[in-house]
């Protein structure tokens, strides 16, 4: 058993949140996205993760290539700096 701990991943739902924040704060989606990233303490890779990137990690972990990996947690968050 392994676990995957995603950070800010721009799913369809997350994108809708960004769009709502853009409207409510009077900025655009780029600004709203960066505002969210900043609220997380910043994401060193400069963007949210993509669902496909999480899927790649899952595909690896369930594959025979990861047969000897057990009891591990994989954080996939673009290097998100803890805000606390």
């Amino acid at each position: 058993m392994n676990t995957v701990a995603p950070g800010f991943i721009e799913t369809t739902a997350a994108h809708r949140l960004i769009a709502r924040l853009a409207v409510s704060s009077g900025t655009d989606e780029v600004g709203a996205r960066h505002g969210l990233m900043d609220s997380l303490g910043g994401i060193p890779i400069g963007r949210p993760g993509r669902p496909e990137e999480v899927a790649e990690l899952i595909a690896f972990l369930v594959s025979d290539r990861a047969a000897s990996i057990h009891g591990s947690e994989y954080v996939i968050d673009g290097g998100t700096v803890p805000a606390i």
Partner: protein
Amino acid sequence: MSEATHFSFDPTEFAGKRVLVTGGTKGMGEAIVRRLAAGGATAATTARSPASEGQAAELFFLSVSG
């Protein structure tokens, strides 16, 4: 953020495997179902909302209520 992400993969890697992905019709779950199915797995998933148009051909759905 709209550019597609395509990674190379072995389309037979998961041949003969059966997987269950909960919450697999949207977001990360959908990406996981699609990735494992693309790798040859038979993927089943659960959802709290109906499938979107265009999903049914690739995904087997187990519907759950609530």
